[in-house]
């Protein structure tokens, strides 16, 4: 997976969390996720299809998810209920959809988002394609955007 495929997701995330939500977001250096299941407790996932295939996962700790979705929705949530999960799905939808404008090599369709929670879930990443983790930190806690995208043949 080429590094140039990671930047669109990094840029879309920064635009969303820093520019739109006004969070003090810092991104760390992207790295290859050795354990593709090493994610936080709440993850939003979107599948990518079309001229390539892959997946992108936005992963938060529980409290971070609640606080970031509260900021996004303009409403204070106190628990990980349906609306917070819905909000996590919308956030990953925005990241994936916005990243498409910089992925000029191919036409991509994005799936509807899914959101999973728990301490031992398993993501079915595309087989044989590495997962790159972009770590972020902000005043509401750490989170990550994880990308797996097959190179053009």
């Amino acid at each position, binding site marked *: 997976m080429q590094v140039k495929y990671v930047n669109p997701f990094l840029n879309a995330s920064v635009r*969303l969390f820093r520019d*739109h*939500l006004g969070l003090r977001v810092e991104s760390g250096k992207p790295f290859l996720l050795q354990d593709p299941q090493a994610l936080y407790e709440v993850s939003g996932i979107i599948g990518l299809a079309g001229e390539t295939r892959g997946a992108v996962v936005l992963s938060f700790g529980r409290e971070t998810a609640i606080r970031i*979705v509260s900021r*996004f*929705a*303009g*409403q204070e949530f106190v628990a990980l209920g*349906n*609306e917070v999960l*819905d*909000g996590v*799905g*919308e956030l990953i*939808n*925005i*990241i*994936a*959809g*916005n*990243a*498409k*404008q910089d*992925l000029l090599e191919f*036409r*991509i369709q*994005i*799936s*509807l988002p899914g959101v999973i929670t728990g301490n031992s879930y398993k993501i079915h990443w595309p087989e044989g394609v590495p997962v790159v983790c972009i770590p972020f930190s902000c005043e509401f806690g750490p989170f990550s955007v994880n990308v797996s995208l097959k190179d053009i043949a």
Partner: protein
Amino acid sequence: MKILVIDDSAVMRRIHRNILKERGIADQDIIDAEDGQVALEIAAKNTIGLFLVDWNMPRLDGLDFVHRVRAMESYAKTPIIMITSEAARYNVVEAIQAGVTNYVVKPIKGEALIEKIGKYLDA
């Protein structure tokens, strides 16, 4: 004027409703639909003056909704604003060709959205 807000995300529907209410639109003039199919049924039973429609939705997505609602004689010229995360140029072209009046990429601040759709609210 009735405004139909079509988005599968309850959070997004609430955000749009709040933006419209802040602009002075009465709560009862804002109708919600969670997908294009529900929206078509609402459109057939009401007179909608403005559609705000997401793209990626289950059952009937925003693009198919636009095709279908544009085929209804009463909505041939009604403003349809697509509000979506789909930011690729080819998506914008496809939506315009389907008949959307204006295309807005999420995320968007309330004031920016009102700036985009204000002229339709005042029409």
